């Protein structure tokens, strides 16, 4: 079912807060740009949705180089939310996106104060192309902001409530795994009105340049993602799915159709695929095309039936 239409017959269909997806596969924020590079390789309309690069109120250059390091079965990144700012995204990136992608998008938003989150969210909420707002309170690569909102239940709740006030679209709070108990943060977001949870962002890590005897990344630390983090992500999604009632977009290390099924059994209603796109630009396409095979092997008729099956 390559161009799966959203009928009752589509075995890959899933749903996020009333938003129907042809399949659960969504490229993760920061690993798919604004779709242009991938649209040259395949019809990206096969994707369930797309989470575009983290957008902030003002333009950001991001961190100094090097920003990337390799790890066993994964990578560290310290891009630092490089983006042209929300006004530019609305004026240029979204119209370009419209030419290549015709389904609702996930708008990923970051900020350094509550006001920055709400102003950016309000602007993107007004865009028809945006189906879901994904509020990143978990970026480990920026200082004085980002992750610090995601490491305390009170601050996470505050951002959630403030964003909910200015938007009409479903709000998914994107959580960091760099906390003692992620379920506490998720519950605080749910209580403050969040419509869903996106998880996990990257795990804080470091590599040393052994010749120079200094941290390899200019930012010193970076976020770990890729297959190395998959079991951590599955565990956290599973714990969170037992703690909250709102839907979860699960991510962290997904690189195959079998990983998608495992993440959904752990409680995810949809998934995001991140680092895998960078090393295999066809990753999402191949995963979607392989899902029917993986489902058949596990006697799954409809993907939606297995959400939380392992809880």
């Amino acid at each position, binding site marked *: 079912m390559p161009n799966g239409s959203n009928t009752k017959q589509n075995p890959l269909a899933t749903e996020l807060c009333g938003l129907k997806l042809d399949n659960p596969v969504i490229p993760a924020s920061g690993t798919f740009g604004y779709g242009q590079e991938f649209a040259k390789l395949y019809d990206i309309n096969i994707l369930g949705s797309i989470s575009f690069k983290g957008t902030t109120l003002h333009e950001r250059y991001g961190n100094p180089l090097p920003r*990337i390091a390799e790890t066993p079965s994964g990578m560290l990144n310290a891009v630092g939310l490089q983006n042209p700012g929300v006004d530019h995204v609305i004026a240029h990136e979204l119209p370009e996106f419209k030419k290549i992608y015709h389904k609702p998008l996930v708008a990923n938003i970051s900020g350094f104060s509550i006001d920055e989150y709400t102003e950016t969210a309000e602007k993107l909420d007004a865009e028809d192309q945006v189906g879901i707002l994904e509020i990143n309170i978990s970026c480990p690569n920026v200082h004085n902001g980002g992750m610090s909102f995601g490491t305390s239940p009170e601050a996470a709740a505050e951002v959630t409530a403030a964003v909910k006030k200015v938007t009409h679209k479903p709000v998914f709070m994107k959580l960091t795994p760099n906390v003692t108990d992620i379920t506490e943060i998720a519950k605080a977001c749910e209580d403050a009105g969040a419509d869903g949870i996106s998880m996990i962002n990257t795990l804080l890590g470091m590599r040393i340049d052994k010749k120079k005897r200094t941290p390899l990344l200019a930012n010193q630390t970076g976020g770990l993602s890729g297959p190395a983090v998959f079991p951590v992500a599955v565990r956290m999604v599973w714990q969170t799915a037992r703690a909250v009632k709102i839907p979860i977009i699960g991510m962290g290390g997904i690189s195959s159709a079998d990983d998608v099924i495992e993440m959904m059994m752990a409680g995810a209603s949809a998934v995001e695929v991140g680092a895998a796109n*960078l090393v295999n630009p066809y990753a999402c396409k191949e995963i979607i095309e392989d899902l029917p095979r993986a489902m058949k092997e596990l006697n799954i008729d409809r993907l939606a039936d297995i959400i939380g099956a392992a809880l």
Partner: protein
Amino acid sequence: MDRQLLTIEANTPVTADTWHMKLTGDCAAISAPGQFINIRLDGFFLRRPISIYDHEDGWVSILYKALGQGTRAMSEMTPGQTLDVLLPLGNGFDVSLCTPHTLLAAGGIGMPPMYGIAKELCSRGITPQVALGFNTEEDILPLQPFRDLGIEPVIATADGSFGVKGFVTDAMETLDYDYVCTCGPEAMLKAVYEHMPDGQLSFEERMGCGFGACMGCSCRTKYGTKRICTDGPILMKDEVIW
């Protein structure tokens, strides 16, 4: 850019630490010298970016230095093995901007793109001058391909064991040129930059994807932020910010 499965036809050492690899397969999309390929290696998560050395219909070749684990694994590969490669990547040198008195200057493993430019310029009736810098005589990369084009590269070695003693910039002092294309380590690029009236420079950066999706390789230029992998690796002299 697309993904291709290429077959190793040859993989042979040319110095103590540098190998020449020839890969066959669909390479028709390569459009300019200085473009690179990004190679997936079993057991390594990220791909390895390597410049295109030479190519014709149906094959591409590279020269690579076995420095770390990935390139060392490459050096142990044998003909017949296949490699998953993204190609072509990057903008490449704009050869149409080269003058009749163009100099190609490289340090160490920055040499491969210089051969591609030389070949292209010669086909356009321009014979460029070539200056190459190496640490020592044993490190000198194959010069015959340049000689086959009718070019005798001027060589500098840091220890003076061959040619001019010093860096590539010392070799450049003996030459007369008004345009430079260069590739090599950043310190060398900076030194060459000081000696070039005008020209183009090829930069190296650690990459997440190599095709413009991750912002892992962004650098500041006078004309805004650019991604080394897609808007580069070649930058014009007038846009470089050090």
